[in-house]
């Protein structure tokens, strides 16, 4: 079994782009049902949502506010999944509910050095 990280990026800063509390509730349910579905297949490894605050460190001791390197590409959360191969992990990514939003992305990356824990 391989492990993949699914990085979920969306604009979590622009005021106009933020959902209303009611919408937020709907989104959260969709998100939890999606993660729950992965966990029900025993493919969930770990991961979580992230706060909207943060700082970005750059070369020459430059520090900027915000959880983003580029606007609209803030990392909103990540989860790690188990999958037989890339295609299977991609199937999880494709069904991620944040993709209902235009401009949002899910990036999928294989973890290269997974420690072999007796499976």
């Amino acid at each position, binding site marked *: 079994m391989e492990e993949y990280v699914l990085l979920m990026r969306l604009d979590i800063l622009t005021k106009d782009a933020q959902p209303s509390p009611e919408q937020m509730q709907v989104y959260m*349910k969709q998100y*939890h*049902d999606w*993660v*729950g*579905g992965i*966990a*029900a*297949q*025993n493919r*969930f490894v770990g991961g979580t949502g992230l706060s909207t605050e943060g700082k970005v460190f750059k070369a020459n001791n430059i520090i900027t506010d915000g959880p983003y390197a580029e606007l609209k590409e803030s990392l909103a959360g990540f989860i790690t999944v188990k999958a037989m191969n890339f295609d299977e992990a991609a199937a999880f990514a494709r069904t991620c509910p944040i993709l209902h939003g235009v401009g949002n992305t899910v990036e999928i990356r294989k973890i290269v050095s997974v420690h072999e824990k007796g499976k």
Partner: protein
Amino acid sequence: MNHQELIPHLFRTEYRKIVSVLGKHFGFDQLETAEDIASDTFLTATQSWGLSGVPVNPTAWLYNVAKNKARNYLQRRNLFENKIAQELVNRIGETDSEVDLSPQNINDSQLQMMFSICHPALPTEAQIGLSLRILCGFGIEEIADAFLTNKETINKRLFRAKEKLREERIKIELPADAEIEERLETVLTTIYLLFNEGYYSVSQDKTHRKELCLEAMRLCTMLVENKSTNLPQVNALLSLMCFHASRFDARIDANGQLVLYEEQDINRWNPDLISKGGYFLNCASSGDKISRYHLEAGIAYWNTQKSDTKEKWENILQLYNRLLQIEYSPVAALNRTYALSKANGKEEAIAEAEKLELQDNHFYYVLLGELYSEIDTAKAKSHFAKALSLAKTSTVRQAIQRRMDKL
């Protein structure tokens, strides 16, 4: 109560106290001696009470006899060591020959015994076996029944477990405060397994199974009553067991047959246990950590609400979503999918069920049969038939058959 009823009752409540105190006094090296003295105390009681009647304070009587027997044993041992090895002379008196059976020491010894028996060095089966023997006063035959095996296997298992306790030089003591949370996990797992052994066991003996559940709840109550172990996850486990136990009488009929949740008579649910469950769930909600027991207690709470509301199923679904992230189990995955069908509709649940890869599990086919039941009767039938062919016990087969007949 005459002595014939009283002694088995006292055995259940007092045996473990005497063994814990003596075991603590002697150390694991002589755990068998502690067990022998405790058993012997009850034998003496049977003989003496039969002849001259039950004493005014039977418990105090038992403690006194146990104390005397322990004193005699320690004196004999000291004498023996003195005679065969003169150089041990200055060790005499090292072990206090007076055994302390005060309520405080009884309580402390039992808690310490619980942590020692649930030491991570022991395999789970041995932990449960020893817990049943020493903390619940079960006979070897009763333990064998609970594990669906024979006395010989249990004897061997307990023997090896005690050997291991000695080899690893495990002390009968509470872990340091910093370690308590970590060690508590094994203790809670053992208690929960003990409970499940009674709740889900295929044994036909209903009284016996109920006793296993009550013992598990009693051990958990001891942890709640002790300051250093009265933690949120302990309260959550106790709450969970109260909620489950509230349906104990309703879920098994007079013939020992399993009654499915939907078919249960709500009037047979125990309201006291339901309200106790609510109380401990409340106590569990201090602190900021959510354990699997919190989530399972939450699910169990919603299951005490029989009405099929949207709110109920949405809550159950979200609790399962989180539970599965903490700890996957096939049962939780199946139950989550059922909740999904109630909250989000059957089509979505069928699509999710097909991804589960639990084709060797008969409950998987029960679930599919259930999901197809109002959509495609032929498909539902074939799934129930598949479940029927995989089911291992007649109780479950009969329940599936009854469900099929209703299609």
